[in-house]
Protein backbone atom coordinates (compact mmCIF):
# COMPACT_ATOMS: atom_id res chain seq x y z
CA UNK A 1 0.00 0.00 0.00
CA UNK A 2 2.71 2.45 1.01
CA UNK A 3 4.66 1.55 -2.13
CA UNK A 4 2.14 3.27 -4.34
CA UNK A 5 2.36 6.68 -2.74
CA UNK A 6 5.22 7.78 -4.93
CA UNK A 7 3.15 10.58 -6.42
CA UNK A 8 4.02 13.73 -4.52
CA UNK A 9 7.01 12.29 -2.74
CA UNK A 10 10.33 14.07 -2.48
CA UNK A 11 13.26 12.36 -4.17
CA UNK A 12 16.53 13.77 -2.83
CA UNK A 13 18.98 15.00 -5.43
CA UNK A 14 21.37 17.77 -6.25
CA UNK A 15 20.30 18.90 -9.70
CA UNK A 16 19.73 22.47 -10.85
CA UNK A 17 16.01 21.95 -10.32
CA UNK A 18 16.55 20.62 -6.80
CA UNK A 19 18.67 23.64 -5.92
CA UNK A 20 16.23 26.21 -7.21
CA UNK A 21 14.48 28.53 -4.80
CA UNK A 22 11.22 26.86 -3.76
CA UNK A 23 9.39 30.17 -4.27
CA UNK A 24 10.52 30.24 -7.87
CA UNK A 25 9.53 26.62 -8.38
CA UNK A 26 6.11 27.07 -6.80
CA UNK A 27 5.26 30.29 -8.64
CA UNK A 28 6.59 29.07 -11.97
CA UNK A 29 4.63 25.81 -11.64
CA UNK A 30 1.43 27.77 -11.16
CA UNK A 31 2.40 30.10 -13.97
CA UNK A 32 2.95 27.08 -16.19
CA UNK A 33 -0.57 25.84 -15.54
CA UNK A 34 -1.77 29.26 -16.66
CA UNK A 35 0.15 29.43 -19.90
CA UNK A 36 -0.85 25.92 -20.92
CA UNK A 37 -4.15 27.47 -21.88
CA UNK A 38 -2.44 29.71 -24.42
CA UNK A 39 -1.57 26.65 -26.47
CA UNK A 40 -4.11 25.76 -29.12
CA UNK A 41 -2.21 23.96 -31.84
CA UNK A 42 -0.03 20.92 -32.32
CA UNK A 43 3.05 23.07 -32.58
CA UNK A 44 2.38 24.91 -29.32
CA UNK A 45 1.76 21.65 -27.46
CA UNK A 46 4.96 20.28 -28.94
CA UNK A 47 6.82 23.29 -27.56
CA UNK A 48 5.24 22.78 -24.13
CA UNK A 49 6.16 19.10 -24.08
CA UNK A 50 9.72 19.85 -25.16
CA UNK A 51 9.98 22.43 -22.38
CA UNK A 52 8.56 20.07 -19.73
CA UNK A 53 10.74 17.15 -20.80
CA UNK A 54 13.80 19.39 -20.74
CA UNK A 55 12.93 20.42 -17.17
CA UNK A 56 12.48 16.78 -16.18
CA UNK A 57 15.79 15.93 -17.81
CA UNK A 58 17.51 18.68 -15.84
CA UNK A 59 16.08 17.34 -12.57
CA UNK A 60 17.75 13.97 -13.10
CA UNK A 61 14.70 12.17 -11.68
CA UNK A 62 13.76 8.93 -13.43
CA UNK A 63 10.98 9.07 -16.04
CA UNK A 64 9.11 6.23 -14.33
CA UNK A 65 8.20 8.57 -11.46
CA UNK A 66 6.33 10.84 -13.82
CA UNK A 67 4.53 8.00 -15.51
CA UNK A 68 3.58 6.74 -12.04
CA UNK A 69 2.31 10.23 -11.26
CA UNK A 70 -0.14 10.03 -14.17
CA UNK A 71 -1.31 6.47 -13.45
CA UNK A 72 -3.60 7.13 -10.45
CA UNK A 73 -5.39 9.87 -12.40
CA UNK A 74 -5.63 8.10 -15.73
CA UNK A 75 -9.34 7.21 -15.36
CA UNK A 76 -10.28 10.77 -14.47
CA UNK A 77 -8.35 12.02 -17.47
CA UNK A 78 -9.88 9.50 -19.85
CA UNK A 79 -13.35 10.29 -18.51
CA UNK A 80 -12.85 13.99 -19.24
CA UNK A 81 -11.43 13.23 -22.66
CA UNK A 82 -14.35 10.97 -23.54
CA UNK A 83 -16.86 13.62 -22.45
CA UNK A 84 -15.06 16.16 -24.56
CA UNK A 85 -15.00 13.88 -27.59
CA UNK A 86 -18.65 12.85 -27.34
CA UNK A 87 -20.34 16.11 -26.45
CA UNK A 88 -18.41 18.91 -28.12
CA UNK A 89 -20.52 20.39 -30.86
CA UNK A 90 -17.55 22.01 -32.66
CA UNK A 91 -16.96 22.14 -36.38
CA UNK A 92 -15.02 20.06 -38.85
CA UNK A 93 -15.96 16.74 -40.31
CA UNK A 94 -18.64 14.84 -38.35
CA UNK A 95 -17.83 11.16 -38.12
CA UNK A 96 -20.76 9.99 -36.05
CA UNK A 97 -23.97 11.43 -34.74
CA UNK A 98 -26.65 9.93 -32.54
CA UNK A 99 -28.96 12.11 -30.46
CA UNK A 100 -26.84 14.56 -28.53
CA UNK A 101 -23.71 12.48 -29.07
CA UNK A 102 -21.50 13.87 -31.80
CA UNK A 103 -18.04 12.73 -32.71
CA UNK A 104 -16.47 15.42 -34.83
CA UNK A 105 -13.00 16.20 -36.01
CA UNK A 106 -12.62 19.19 -33.71
CA UNK A 107 -14.01 17.17 -30.82
CA UNK A 108 -11.36 14.51 -31.29
CA UNK A 109 -8.62 17.10 -31.55
CA UNK A 110 -9.87 18.86 -28.45
CA UNK A 111 -9.88 15.53 -26.62
CA UNK A 112 -6.24 14.99 -27.44
CA UNK A 113 -5.46 18.58 -26.38
CA UNK A 114 -7.14 18.03 -23.04
CA UNK A 115 -5.23 14.83 -22.54
CA UNK A 116 -2.00 16.71 -23.26
CA UNK A 117 -2.95 19.47 -20.84
CA UNK A 118 -3.56 16.99 -18.02
CA UNK A 119 -0.32 15.17 -18.64
CA UNK A 120 1.64 18.42 -18.77
CA UNK A 121 0.11 19.74 -15.56
CA UNK A 122 0.75 16.45 -13.75
CA UNK A 123 4.32 16.24 -15.04
CA UNK A 124 5.10 19.78 -13.92
CA UNK A 125 3.48 19.50 -10.48
CA UNK A 126 5.12 16.09 -9.96
CA UNK A 127 8.42 17.71 -10.84
CA UNK A 128 7.74 20.36 -8.20
CA UNK A 129 6.98 17.89 -5.41
CA UNK A 130 9.67 15.40 -6.42
CA UNK A 131 12.42 18.01 -6.29
CA UNK A 132 11.27 20.15 -3.35
CA UNK A 133 11.30 18.99 0.28
CA UNK A 134 7.81 19.58 1.76
CA UNK A 135 9.14 21.96 4.41
CA UNK A 136 10.73 24.17 1.76
CA UNK A 137 7.41 24.25 -0.03
CA UNK A 138 5.65 25.44 3.08
CA UNK A 139 8.31 28.14 3.53
CA UNK A 140 7.61 29.23 -0.01
CA UNK A 141 3.87 29.33 0.65
CA UNK A 142 4.44 31.39 3.78
CA UNK A 143 6.45 33.89 1.78
CA UNK A 144 3.92 34.07 -1.00
CA UNK A 145 1.02 34.56 1.43
CA UNK A 146 2.81 37.46 3.21
CA UNK A 147 0.86 40.20 1.41
CA UNK A 148 -2.34 38.82 2.96
CA UNK A 149 -1.16 40.07 6.36
CA UNK A 150 -2.59 43.42 5.35
CA UNK A 151 -6.07 41.93 5.66
CA UNK A 152 -5.13 40.24 8.98
CA UNK A 153 -4.83 36.79 7.49
CA UNK A 154 -2.88 34.63 10.02
CA UNK A 155 0.01 33.89 7.66
CA UNK A 156 2.50 32.62 10.26
CA UNK A 157 -0.02 30.38 11.93
CA UNK A 158 -1.19 28.90 8.64
CA UNK A 159 2.41 28.31 7.60
CA UNK A 160 3.18 26.64 10.94
CA UNK A 161 0.12 24.44 10.63
CA UNK A 162 1.18 23.49 7.14
CA UNK A 163 4.74 22.68 8.24
CA UNK A 164 3.51 20.57 11.12
CA UNK A 165 1.02 18.75 8.92
CA UNK A 166 3.67 18.01 6.31
CA UNK A 167 6.23 17.05 8.93
CA UNK A 168 3.90 14.46 10.42
CA UNK A 169 2.76 12.80 7.20
CA UNK A 170 5.55 10.20 7.30
CA UNK A 171 5.09 9.73 11.05
CA UNK A 172 1.39 9.15 10.56
CA UNK A 173 2.06 6.70 7.76
CA UNK A 174 4.45 4.73 9.97
CA UNK A 175 1.88 4.77 12.72
CA UNK A 176 -0.84 3.60 10.35
CA UNK A 177 1.28 0.71 9.21
CA UNK A 178 2.12 -0.25 12.79
CA UNK A 179 -1.48 -0.24 13.93
CA UNK A 180 -2.59 -2.06 10.79
CA UNK A 181 -0.05 -4.76 11.55
CA UNK A 182 -1.19 -5.02 15.15
CA UNK A 183 -4.82 -5.34 14.11
CA UNK A 184 -4.05 -7.77 11.30
CA UNK A 185 -2.25 -9.86 13.90
CA UNK A 186 -5.56 -9.83 15.79
CA UNK A 187 -7.41 -11.16 12.78
CA UNK A 188 -8.61 -8.05 10.95
CA UNK A 189 -8.66 -8.29 7.15
CA UNK A 190 -8.09 -4.91 5.56
CA UNK A 191 -9.31 -4.52 2.00
CA UNK A 192 -11.29 -7.73 1.95
CA UNK A 193 -14.96 -8.60 2.10
CA UNK A 194 -17.90 -6.40 1.14
CA UNK A 195 -18.10 -2.67 1.67
CA UNK A 196 -19.64 -2.96 5.16
CA UNK A 197 -16.98 -5.38 6.35
CA UNK A 198 -14.32 -3.07 4.98
CA UNK A 199 -15.83 -0.05 6.69
CA UNK A 200 -15.97 -1.95 9.96
CA UNK A 201 -12.33 -2.96 9.56
CA UNK A 202 -11.35 0.69 9.47
CA UNK A 203 -12.68 1.46 12.97
CA UNK A 204 -9.88 -0.40 14.83
CA UNK A 205 -7.41 1.53 12.70
CA UNK A 206 -8.88 5.02 12.89
CA UNK A 207 -9.57 5.21 16.62
CA UNK A 208 -5.99 4.38 17.67
CA UNK A 209 -4.73 6.80 15.02
CA UNK A 210 -6.90 9.61 16.39
CA UNK A 211 -5.86 8.86 19.95
CA UNK A 212 -2.18 8.87 19.12
CA UNK A 213 -2.49 11.99 16.98
CA UNK A 214 -4.13 13.90 19.80
CA UNK A 215 -1.50 12.69 22.24
CA UNK A 216 1.24 13.66 19.86
CA UNK A 217 -0.28 17.10 19.30
CA UNK A 218 -0.31 17.68 23.04
CA UNK A 219 3.29 16.51 23.39
CA UNK A 220 4.34 18.73 20.53
CA UNK A 221 2.61 21.76 22.03
CA UNK A 222 4.30 21.12 25.37
CA UNK A 223 7.69 20.67 23.72
CA UNK A 224 7.29 23.89 21.74
CA UNK A 225 6.21 25.83 24.77
CA UNK A 226 9.02 24.39 26.89
CA UNK A 227 11.48 25.67 24.32
CA UNK A 228 9.88 29.08 24.32
CA UNK A 229 8.28 29.00 20.90
CA UNK A 230 6.87 32.28 19.79
CA UNK A 231 5.53 32.67 16.31
CA UNK A 232 4.85 35.76 14.31
CA UNK A 233 6.84 38.88 13.61
CA UNK A 234 10.57 38.86 14.25
CA UNK A 235 11.06 35.11 14.36
CA UNK A 236 14.25 34.22 12.48
CA UNK A 237 14.44 31.23 10.18
CA UNK A 238 16.63 28.17 10.04
CA UNK A 239 16.12 27.66 6.32
CA UNK A 240 16.70 30.94 4.55
CA UNK A 241 15.32 31.23 1.06
CA UNK A 242 17.75 32.74 -1.42
CA UNK A 243 16.90 33.90 -4.90
CA UNK A 244 19.83 33.02 -7.12
CA UNK A 245 20.95 33.42 -10.69
CA UNK A 246 19.45 30.07 -11.67
CA UNK A 247 16.04 31.22 -10.48
CA UNK A 248 16.29 34.31 -12.63
CA UNK A 249 17.27 32.15 -15.59
CA UNK A 250 14.35 29.84 -14.96
CA UNK A 251 12.01 32.84 -14.89
CA UNK A 252 13.49 34.15 -18.11
CA UNK A 253 13.06 30.79 -19.78
CA UNK A 254 9.38 30.78 -18.79
CA UNK A 255 9.03 34.28 -20.22
CA UNK A 256 10.60 33.12 -23.48
CA UNK A 257 8.25 30.13 -23.48
CA UNK A 258 5.28 32.44 -23.06
CA UNK A 259 6.37 34.65 -25.94
CA UNK A 260 7.00 31.60 -28.12
CA UNK A 261 3.54 30.23 -27.36
CA UNK A 262 1.84 33.51 -28.18
CA UNK A 263 3.74 33.80 -31.45
CA UNK A 264 3.14 30.18 -32.50
CA UNK A 265 -0.49 30.22 -31.50
CA UNK A 266 -2.80 29.30 -34.32
Amino acid at each position, binding site marked *: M*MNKLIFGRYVPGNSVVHRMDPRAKLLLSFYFIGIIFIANSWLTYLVLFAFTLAAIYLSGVKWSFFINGVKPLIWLILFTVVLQVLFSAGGGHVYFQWGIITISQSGLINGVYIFCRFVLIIFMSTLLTLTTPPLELSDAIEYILMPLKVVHFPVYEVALMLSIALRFVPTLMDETEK*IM*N*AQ*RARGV*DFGEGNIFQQMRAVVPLLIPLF*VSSFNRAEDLATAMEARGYQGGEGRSKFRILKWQMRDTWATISFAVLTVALILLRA
Partner: protein
Amino acid sequence: MAITFKQVDFTYQPGTPFATNALTDINVTIPTGSYTALIGHTGSGKSTLLQHLNALLKPTSGTVTIGERVITPTTSNKDLKSLRQQVGIVFQFPESQLFEETVVKDIAFGPQNFGVSEEDAHQTAAKMLALVGLDQSLLERSPFDLSGGQMRRVAIAGVLAMQPKVLVLDEPTAGLDPQGRLEMMQMFARLRHEQELTVVLVTHQMDDVADYADNVIVMDQGRVVKTGTPREIFADPQWLTEHQLGLPKTTAFAQTLREQGWQFDQLPLTEDELAQMLKSQLAPSLAPSHFGEGTAHDE
Protein backbone atom coordinates in the same frame (compact mmCIF):
# COMPACT_ATOMS: atom_id res chain seq x y z
CA MET B 1 4.71 -25.13 16.92
CA ALA B 2 8.09 -24.71 15.28
CA ILE B 3 8.94 -21.93 12.86
CA THR B 4 11.71 -22.46 10.32
CA PHE B 5 13.33 -19.93 8.00
CA LYS B 6 15.08 -21.25 4.90
CA GLN B 7 17.25 -18.91 2.85
CA VAL B 8 14.92 -16.02 3.50
CA ASP B 9 15.66 -12.67 1.91
CA PHE B 10 13.41 -9.68 2.36
CA THR B 11 13.50 -6.33 0.58
CA TYR B 12 11.21 -3.40 1.36
CA GLN B 13 9.66 -1.78 -1.73
CA PRO B 14 11.53 -3.93 -4.24
CA GLY B 15 11.91 -2.47 -7.71
CA THR B 16 11.67 1.15 -6.61
CA PRO B 17 14.46 3.62 -5.85
CA PHE B 18 13.46 3.24 -2.19
CA ALA B 19 14.26 -0.49 -2.12
CA THR B 20 16.04 -1.46 1.07
CA ASN B 21 17.35 -4.89 1.84
CA ALA B 22 16.24 -5.83 5.35
CA LEU B 23 16.97 -9.55 5.62
CA THR B 24 19.65 -11.58 3.89
CA ASP B 25 19.91 -15.36 3.78
CA ILE B 26 18.14 -16.15 7.06
CA ASN B 27 18.36 -19.82 8.06
CA VAL B 28 17.05 -20.33 11.54
CA THR B 29 14.65 -22.48 13.50
CA ILE B 30 12.53 -21.59 16.48
CA PRO B 31 11.83 -24.97 18.11
CA THR B 32 8.49 -25.90 19.65
CA GLY B 33 8.27 -24.99 23.31
CA SER B 34 11.44 -22.92 23.29
CA TYR B 35 11.89 -19.48 24.82
CA THR B 36 13.83 -17.80 22.06
CA ALA B 37 15.40 -14.39 22.50
CA LEU B 38 16.00 -12.32 19.38
CA ILE B 39 18.72 -9.74 19.99
CA GLY B 40 20.64 -7.26 17.89
CA HIS B 41 21.08 -3.52 17.90
CA THR B 42 18.56 -1.10 16.36
CA GLY B 43 18.11 -1.61 12.64
CA SER B 44 19.51 -5.13 12.58
CA GLY B 45 16.32 -6.56 11.10
CA LYS B 46 14.65 -7.93 14.25
CA SER B 47 11.30 -6.29 13.61
CA THR B 48 11.27 -7.39 9.98
CA LEU B 49 12.03 -10.97 10.97
CA LEU B 50 9.29 -10.79 13.57
CA GLN B 51 6.68 -9.84 11.00
CA HIS B 52 7.50 -13.00 9.06
CA LEU B 53 6.48 -15.12 12.04
CA ASN B 54 2.79 -14.77 11.24
CA ALA B 55 3.07 -13.87 7.57
CA LEU B 56 2.41 -10.16 7.98
CA LEU B 57 5.35 -9.98 5.61
CA LYS B 58 6.20 -12.61 3.07
CA PRO B 59 9.80 -13.36 2.09
CA THR B 60 11.09 -11.83 -1.15
CA SER B 61 12.80 -15.17 -1.67
CA GLY B 62 13.11 -18.35 0.38
CA THR B 63 10.49 -20.02 2.59
CA VAL B 64 9.15 -19.66 6.11
CA THR B 65 7.54 -22.77 7.57
CA ILE B 66 5.11 -22.00 10.37
CA GLY B 67 3.87 -25.22 11.89
CA GLU B 68 2.40 -27.02 8.89
CA ARG B 69 2.07 -23.99 6.64
CA VAL B 70 4.79 -23.05 4.19
CA ILE B 71 4.96 -19.37 3.28
CA THR B 72 6.66 -18.55 -0.01
CA PRO B 73 6.92 -15.25 -1.90
CA THR B 74 3.83 -16.22 -3.90
CA THR B 75 1.58 -17.31 -1.02
CA SER B 76 -1.83 -15.67 -1.31
CA ASN B 77 -2.85 -13.17 1.34
CA LYS B 78 -6.08 -15.07 1.93
CA ASP B 79 -6.51 -17.94 4.40
CA LEU B 80 -3.78 -16.59 6.64
CA LYS B 81 -6.24 -16.16 9.49
CA SER B 82 -5.51 -19.49 11.16
CA LEU B 83 -1.82 -18.58 11.16
CA ARG B 84 -2.51 -15.23 12.76
CA GLN B 85 -4.54 -16.99 15.42
CA GLN B 86 -1.79 -19.50 16.17
CA VAL B 87 1.03 -16.96 16.31
CA GLY B 88 0.09 -14.06 18.57
CA ILE B 89 2.27 -10.99 18.26
CA VAL B 90 2.49 -8.37 20.98
CA PHE B 91 3.98 -5.39 19.17
CA GLN B 92 6.05 -2.66 20.74
CA PHE B 93 3.88 -0.35 22.81
CA PRO B 94 0.84 -2.58 22.25
CA GLU B 95 -1.38 -0.14 24.17
CA SER B 96 -1.60 1.84 20.93
CA GLN B 97 -3.80 -0.86 19.40
CA LEU B 98 -6.64 -0.43 21.92
CA PHE B 99 -9.79 1.02 20.40
CA GLU B 100 -12.96 -0.45 21.92
CA GLU B 101 -15.30 1.25 24.39
CA THR B 102 -14.64 -1.24 27.14
CA VAL B 103 -11.78 -3.44 28.22
CA VAL B 104 -13.82 -6.61 27.81
CA LYS B 105 -14.79 -5.75 24.22
CA ASP B 106 -11.22 -4.98 23.32
CA ILE B 107 -9.85 -8.24 24.68
CA ALA B 108 -12.68 -10.16 22.99
CA PHE B 109 -11.99 -8.46 19.64
CA GLY B 110 -9.27 -10.93 18.56
CA PRO B 111 -11.13 -14.17 19.33
CA GLN B 112 -14.31 -12.81 17.70
CA ASN B 113 -12.38 -12.13 14.51
CA PHE B 114 -11.44 -15.80 14.52
CA GLY B 115 -15.05 -16.90 14.79
CA VAL B 116 -15.54 -17.32 18.54
CA SER B 117 -19.03 -16.31 19.68
CA GLU B 118 -19.43 -13.05 21.57
CA GLU B 119 -20.43 -14.81 24.75
CA ASP B 120 -17.48 -17.20 24.73
CA ALA B 121 -15.10 -14.41 23.79
CA HIS B 122 -16.28 -12.31 26.74
CA GLN B 123 -15.75 -15.24 29.09
CA THR B 124 -12.24 -15.74 27.71
CA ALA B 125 -11.64 -12.02 28.13
CA ALA B 126 -12.48 -12.18 31.82
CA LYS B 127 -10.11 -15.11 32.26
CA MET B 128 -7.30 -13.40 30.38
CA LEU B 129 -7.69 -10.24 32.42
CA ALA B 130 -7.08 -12.29 35.55
CA LEU B 131 -4.16 -14.01 33.86
CA VAL B 132 -2.36 -10.72 33.23
CA GLY B 133 -2.94 -9.75 36.83
CA LEU B 134 -5.71 -7.18 36.54
CA ASP B 135 -8.86 -6.89 38.60
CA GLN B 136 -12.23 -7.96 37.14
CA SER B 137 -13.67 -4.57 38.05
CA LEU B 138 -11.79 -3.10 35.06
CA LEU B 139 -13.78 -5.16 32.54
CA GLU B 140 -16.43 -2.54 31.91
CA ARG B 141 -14.09 0.44 32.06
CA SER B 142 -12.85 2.28 29.00
CA PRO B 143 -9.32 1.17 28.14
CA PHE B 144 -8.38 4.82 27.70
CA ASP B 145 -9.06 5.55 31.38
CA LEU B 146 -6.42 3.08 32.56
CA SER B 147 -2.84 3.76 33.52
CA GLY B 148 -0.07 3.06 30.99
CA GLY B 149 0.92 -0.22 32.63
CA GLN B 150 -2.68 -1.40 32.86
CA MET B 151 -3.31 -0.52 29.21
CA ARG B 152 -0.34 -2.61 28.20
CA ARG B 153 -1.62 -5.56 30.20
CA VAL B 154 -5.03 -5.25 28.58
CA ALA B 155 -3.41 -5.20 25.13
CA ILE B 156 -1.39 -8.31 26.01
CA ALA B 157 -4.55 -9.99 27.28
CA GLY B 158 -6.10 -9.16 23.89
CA VAL B 159 -3.39 -11.18 22.16
CA LEU B 160 -3.49 -14.01 24.71
CA ALA B 161 -7.26 -14.26 24.28
CA MET B 162 -6.70 -15.60 20.77
CA GLN B 163 -5.09 -18.55 22.55
CA PRO B 164 -2.03 -18.69 20.31
CA LYS B 165 0.50 -21.49 20.38
CA VAL B 166 3.37 -19.12 19.76
CA LEU B 167 3.63 -15.83 21.62
CA VAL B 168 5.87 -13.23 20.04
CA LEU B 169 6.86 -10.28 22.24
CA ASP B 170 8.50 -7.19 20.78
CA GLU B 171 10.19 -5.35 23.66
CA PRO B 172 7.21 -5.86 25.93
CA THR B 173 8.78 -4.04 28.87
CA ALA B 174 9.90 -0.88 27.05
CA GLY B 175 8.91 2.19 29.06
CA LEU B 176 7.84 0.32 32.20
CA ASP B 177 9.32 0.94 35.63
CA PRO B 178 11.68 -1.73 37.09
CA GLN B 179 8.96 -3.31 39.23
CA GLY B 180 6.56 -3.40 36.26
CA ARG B 181 9.26 -4.94 34.11
CA LEU B 182 9.98 -7.69 36.59
CA GLU B 183 6.27 -8.47 37.01
CA MET B 184 5.75 -8.53 33.27
CA MET B 185 8.66 -10.87 32.60
CA GLN B 186 7.61 -13.21 35.41
CA MET B 187 4.10 -13.19 34.00
CA PHE B 188 5.37 -14.35 30.58
CA ALA B 189 7.45 -17.09 32.19
CA ARG B 190 4.38 -18.26 34.13
CA LEU B 191 2.11 -18.11 31.06
CA ARG B 192 4.62 -20.07 29.07
CA HIS B 193 4.40 -22.98 31.49
CA GLU B 194 0.66 -22.76 32.09
CA GLN B 195 -0.29 -22.51 28.42
CA GLU B 196 2.64 -24.51 27.02
CA LEU B 197 3.59 -21.64 24.74
CA THR B 198 6.52 -21.20 22.45
CA VAL B 199 7.84 -17.73 23.25
CA VAL B 200 9.85 -15.40 21.03
CA LEU B 201 11.19 -12.34 22.81
CA VAL B 202 12.74 -9.36 21.07
CA THR B 203 14.68 -7.38 23.62
CA HIS B 204 17.60 -5.12 24.42
CA GLN B 205 17.64 -6.31 28.04
CA MET B 206 20.43 -8.86 28.28
CA ASP B 207 19.40 -9.60 31.86
CA ASP B 208 16.06 -10.86 30.59
CA VAL B 209 17.81 -13.02 27.99
CA ALA B 210 20.01 -14.57 30.70
CA ASP B 211 17.14 -15.03 33.13
CA TYR B 212 14.43 -16.44 30.88
CA ALA B 213 15.58 -17.55 27.42
CA ASP B 214 16.91 -20.97 26.48
CA ASN B 215 17.69 -20.15 22.86
CA VAL B 216 19.22 -16.97 21.45
CA ILE B 217 19.34 -15.59 17.91
CA VAL B 218 21.74 -12.69 17.33
CA MET B 219 21.12 -10.46 14.32
CA ASP B 220 23.33 -7.85 12.69
CA GLN B 221 22.73 -5.97 9.44
CA GLY B 222 19.90 -8.22 8.34
CA ARG B 223 21.78 -11.45 8.94
CA VAL B 224 21.71 -14.03 11.69
CA VAL B 225 25.25 -13.90 13.01
CA LYS B 226 24.99 -16.36 15.88
CA THR B 227 22.56 -18.78 17.48
CA GLY B 228 22.92 -20.76 20.66
CA THR B 229 22.06 -20.96 24.33
CA PRO B 230 22.49 -17.82 26.42
CA ARG B 231 25.61 -19.37 27.94
CA GLU B 232 27.19 -19.87 24.52
CA ILE B 233 26.25 -16.35 23.42
CA PHE B 234 27.48 -14.59 26.55
CA ALA B 235 30.71 -16.61 26.77
CA ASP B 236 32.47 -14.18 24.45
CA PRO B 237 32.12 -10.62 25.76
CA GLN B 238 34.47 -9.20 23.14
CA TRP B 239 32.43 -10.59 20.26
CA LEU B 240 29.29 -9.10 21.78
CA THR B 241 30.87 -5.67 22.03
CA GLU B 242 31.86 -5.89 18.38
CA HIS B 243 28.19 -6.38 17.53
CA GLN B 244 27.13 -3.51 19.80
CA LEU B 245 25.56 -5.79 22.36
CA GLY B 246 26.10 -5.88 26.10
CA LEU B 247 26.41 -8.51 28.79
CA PRO B 248 23.88 -9.30 31.49
CA LYS B 249 24.73 -7.33 34.66
CA THR B 250 25.76 -10.45 36.53
CA THR B 251 28.00 -11.69 33.75
CA ALA B 252 29.58 -8.25 33.40
CA PHE B 253 30.23 -8.19 37.14
CA ALA B 254 31.84 -11.64 37.02
CA GLN B 255 33.92 -10.48 34.06
CA THR B 256 35.23 -7.59 36.16
CA LEU B 257 36.02 -10.00 39.00
CA ARG B 258 37.84 -12.23 36.55
CA GLU B 259 40.00 -9.31 35.47
CA GLN B 260 40.82 -8.80 39.16
CA GLY B 261 42.14 -12.35 39.40
CA TRP B 262 39.08 -14.42 40.34
CA GLN B 263 38.72 -17.77 38.66
CA PHE B 264 35.52 -18.88 36.89
CA ASP B 265 35.24 -22.02 34.79
CA GLN B 266 32.46 -20.31 32.87
CA LEU B 267 30.85 -16.91 33.24
CA PRO B 268 27.69 -17.00 35.36
CA LEU B 269 24.40 -15.80 33.86
CA THR B 270 22.16 -15.24 36.86
CA GLU B 271 22.65 -13.81 40.31
CA ASP B 272 22.01 -17.20 41.91
CA GLU B 273 24.66 -18.79 39.79
CA LEU B 274 27.17 -16.06 40.61
CA ALA B 275 26.36 -16.39 44.30
CA GLN B 276 26.97 -20.14 44.14
CA MET B 277 30.25 -19.71 42.31
CA LEU B 278 31.49 -17.07 44.72
CA LYS B 279 30.40 -19.17 47.65
CA SER B 280 32.30 -22.19 46.42
CA GLN B 281 35.42 -20.10 46.02
CA LEU B 282 35.08 -18.36 49.35
CA ALA B 283 33.91 -21.40 51.23
CA PRO B 284 37.27 -23.06 52.02
CA SER B 285 38.49 -19.92 53.73
CA LEU B 286 35.25 -19.46 55.67
CA ALA B 287 33.70 -22.57 57.09
CA PRO B 288 34.52 -25.54 54.86
CA SER B 289 32.29 -28.13 56.46
CA HIS B 290 29.10 -26.14 56.07
CA PHE B 291 29.40 -24.57 52.64
CA GLY B 292 31.07 -27.33 50.71
CA GLU B 293 27.78 -28.90 49.61
CA GLY B 294 26.19 -26.01 47.82
CA THR B 295 28.21 -26.09 44.59
CA ALA B 296 25.57 -27.66 42.40
CA HIS B 297 24.57 -25.38 39.57
CA ASP B 298 21.06 -24.21 39.46
CA GLU B 299 19.67 -23.08 36.15
